[in-house]
């Protein structure tokens, strides 16, 4: 069968149609058992997008796992994981692809259980429209409100409330209208511009692909009709050119290009641009598209740019319209969805990825968390899995950004745990708390090196960590006495002593422990800056905080010293009687008893007090600190 010219022409026409066809990315969400998977299965079935072997497999699965008697159980089409089919629940988001003559669709079927909210968020982050299902018998549930809140967080402007299982309430118009009124008010309160309510029955196919004779009172469209025709704007409203640099393309000396996807606006050859946060300017020389040189390129295109001048631009920088650049800042107000199994603790360091840049970050303050059911604001010192909050965010270096409401690519970020690399939060930037460009370092003539030289020593921070009663303070005290006797300038920051003053306001919860360490680390840094040898003697039980402390110091300035004494031995010594009281339940959050101690993985020095006398261990430390000092720096006594 050879293709005739007529058939070839028909196929070419088909390709052009497919090419020009619009695509809508949407999600289905809502509470468990409200019928999301069934609705999608019904959409695929009614639009004849299931193949014969898929239908045969569905019939087989329905007989085995189905919940619809002899009928097809459409939910099994989407619940593809074995655990899902066995338990009859959706765990993770499933993507399906279908189309009609009017539009192509990518639909993400999201899980309804609260514990899988992070998977729902995964689907919502790339959606242009959300179909929120409710069961007509139950009305709005907590999950309905939570999912709607997350849709609003991610800037989904079009929401369809599908009031499902209308067949089970006798297609009662009043019931539908009551639910619709309540939901419309919720959507308005959350700032969702377009909320359309449709009564339907996924199981029976009412108002899914065609208007139902059972509900003649519903004047609006069937669901599919609405999905085919709703107008969805692509950009978020901003117009200035933005391109986060993904990859510097340097095949040889004659070519240096900056590859990335255009996040906003358009660019033409010759246009003046600025590279941020550095601020260097140049003009566009060439734009390389996927098929060769372009004179113009716009949002969504993956391109490679070359400049008229040599600029020092790297991955993570943002190329922007020089006349309308985005702001640069390092502190922000943001909204956060916490997705980590361990709680968010303010002050704990995380990685933040935004655009193509990854920087160190911490949440400095939880302004309030939000009760998704009532929208009320609650005070909080930590965030647990699936909680949402308004927070302040601080980065360790400035970035080019835009508020999420104006630009998703420059305003949406994730937080990554520094130990297990899990993605623990999704967030959106609202505004900068201060412009980084307004924050100046006061220039000081006398610097750390000068202060150290006059003292004839190399400053450093010796960080003692270990259980209560392990011998930290005893050894630190011996070390300081010897160094002092040898003429060195030292200072001890002791956990107990600092808690009498600087940290008097802090308790022993995880949040307060993090803040306790942050303050002490900053003080130690100032003292090292002043030229001192600082001995910090703190239990400091968490790896993340010790890592944060280490990051404040220069290479070789920070010595982590693990005073390694078995818990049983510490408890036997119990110099302050604290273990006895903790065991008696009189002290809570006591390290080693009901609060964890995370031993260092790579301490510079480990001291085993069970194997040597404190004096011997102290001498070893003194030798280590002095050997690590350059010999010429020490004046003759």
């Amino acid at each position, binding site marked *: 069968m050879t293709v005739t010219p007529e058939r070839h022409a028909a196929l070419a026409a088909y390709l052009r149609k497919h090419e020009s066809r619009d695509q809508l990315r949407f999600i289905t969400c809502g509470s468990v058992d409200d019928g999301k998977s069934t609705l999608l299965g019904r959409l695929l079935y009614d639009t004849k997008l299931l193949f014969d072997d898929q239908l045969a497999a569905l019939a087989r699965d329905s007989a085995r796992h189905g919940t619809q008697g002899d009928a097809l159980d459409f939910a099994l089409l989407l619940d593809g994981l074995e655990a899902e089919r066995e338990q009859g629940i959706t765990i993770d988001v499933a993507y399906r692809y279908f189309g009609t003559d009017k539009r192509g669709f990518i639909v993400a079927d999201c899980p309804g259980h609260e514990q899988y909210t992070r998977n729902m968020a995964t689907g919502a982050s790339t959606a242009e429209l959300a179909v929120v299902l409710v069961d007509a018998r139950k009305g709005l549930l907590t999950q309905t409100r939570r999912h709607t809140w997350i849709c609003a967080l991610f800037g989904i402007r079009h929401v369809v409330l599908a009031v499902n299982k209308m067949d089970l309430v006798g297609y009662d118009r009043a019931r539908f209208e009551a639910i619709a009124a309540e939901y419309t008010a919720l959507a308005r309160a959350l700032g969702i511009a377009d909320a359309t309510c449709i009564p339907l029955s996924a199981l029976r196919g009412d108002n899914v692909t065609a208007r139902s004779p059972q509900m003649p009172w519903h004047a609006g469209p069937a669901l599919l009709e609405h999905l085919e025709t709703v107008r969805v704007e692509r950009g978020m409203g901003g117009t200035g050119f933005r391109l986060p640099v993904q990859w510097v393309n340097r095949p040889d000396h004659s070519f240096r290009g900056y590859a990335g*996807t255009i996040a906003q606006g358009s660019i033409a050859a010759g246009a003046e641009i600025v590279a941020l946060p550095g601020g260097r300017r140049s003009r566009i020389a060439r734009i390389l598209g996927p098929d060769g040189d372009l004179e113009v390129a716009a949002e969504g295109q993956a391109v490679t740019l070359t400049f008229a001048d040599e600029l020092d631009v790297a991955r993570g920088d943002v190329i922007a319209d020089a006349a309308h650049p985005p702001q640069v800042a390092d502190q922000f107000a943001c909204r956060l969805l916490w997705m980590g199994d361990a709680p968010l603790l303010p002050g704990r360091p995380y990685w933040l990825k935004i655009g193509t840049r990854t920087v160190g970050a911490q949440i400095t303050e939880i302004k309030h968390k939000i009760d998704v059911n009532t929208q009320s604001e609650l005070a909080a010192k930590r965030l647990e899995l699936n909680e949402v909050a308004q927070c302040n965010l601080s980065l360790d270096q400035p970035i080019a950004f835009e508020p999420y409401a104006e630009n998703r690519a420059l305003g949406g970020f994730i937080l*990554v745990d520094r130990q297990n690399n899990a993605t623990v939060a999704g967030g959106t930037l609202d505004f900068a708390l201060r412009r980084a460009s307004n924050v100046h370092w006061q220039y000081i003539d006398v610097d750390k090196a000068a202060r150290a030289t006059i003292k004839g020593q190399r400053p450093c921070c010796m960080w003692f960590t270990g259980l209560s009663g392990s011998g930290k303070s005893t050894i630190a005290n011996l070390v300081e006495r010897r160094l002092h006797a040898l003429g060195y300038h030292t200072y001890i920051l002791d956990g107990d002593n600092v808690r009498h003053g600087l940290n008097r306001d802090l308790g022993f919860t995880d949040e307060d422990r993090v803040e306790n360490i942050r303050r002490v680390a900053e003080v130690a840094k100032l003292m090292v800056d002043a030229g001192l040898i600082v001995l910090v003697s703190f239990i400091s039980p968490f790896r993340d905080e010790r890592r944060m402390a280490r990051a404040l110091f220069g290479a070789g300035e920070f010595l982590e010293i693990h005073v390694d004494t078995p818990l049983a031995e510490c408890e036997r010594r119990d110099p302050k009687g604290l273990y006895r009281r903790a065991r008696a339940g009189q002290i809570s959050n006591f390290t080693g008893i009901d609060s964890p101690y995370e031993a260092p993985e790579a301490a510079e020095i480990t001291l085993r007090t069970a194997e040597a006398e404190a004096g011997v261990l102290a001498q070893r430390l003194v030798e280590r600190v002095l050997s690590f000092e350059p010999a010429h720096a020490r004046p003759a006594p």
Partner: protein
Amino acid sequence: MSIKTEAARLSQLDRLEAESIHILREVAAEFRNPVLLYSVGKDSSVLLHLLLKAFRPARPPIPLLHVDTTWKFREMIAFRDRRAAETGVELRVHINEEGVRQGVGPFTHGAAVHTDVMKTQALKQALDKYGFDAAIGGARRDEEKSRAKERIFSFRSAQHRWDPRNQRPELWNLYNARIRPGESVRAFPLSNWTELDVWLYVWREKIPVVPLYFAAERPVVERDGALIMVDDARLPLRPGETPTMRRVRFRTLGCYPLTGAIESEADTLEAIIEEMLTTRSSERQGRVIDHDPTASMERKKQEGYF
């Protein structure tokens, strides 16, 4: 060179192309030693084409790896070597030599053992041998139910295992590439493409594909309801089986004894696309290996299968 002067509105294929290029560049930028799993099929052909586009004018910084089970169609191997030479992209071929020594094959050991030893174990060997920390694959979410659930950057433990119940959240196009030594990521730039998108793109971009996709007279035997091509003398004929010449083509390509052909007259790309639009069965139907226990793809993937 011709220069386009207007930024046209992006079509569905343009959007998919841009998304895939973005993913390929993220892999190149975020990983120390990435590789592209090149399986010689149409999806791999599209991936290779996108890889060239993503890094032009430079040569792609990511090599190709083909895990050769020694049972591939001969035309696939010839096509593979020709494309590597034409594009100049580095190609590495890995064969599980231990499996070869033990004589593992689909007839002696069965489809499941053969696939496990020569494909899944071989892939893990290759990833460990070269220390690849990211492997790019051409899998699409529309192919199969467990793939419909997989992330674009899909995390693997140091034992190459996928934990479908505990995947990392993946927001926007912010792919989390952070891993510890020994762990790795499988990246799927074609996640959001459908079979139709792939063929339309092959057509639009004039991408070379293995001739086995086009209908031709080929020697086949009918076995357990599938049409198996007699690609070489290793296929043991059962009593009563005589290879006959039939006009067939393949919708997917794998090991020839495990890949069923379909009778077809489609000998051009246009005809293939037309056939797709009227077909009533999904492309994986021809894969003998998929008809093991229900949802078996998920189990194979957990064990490290692509």
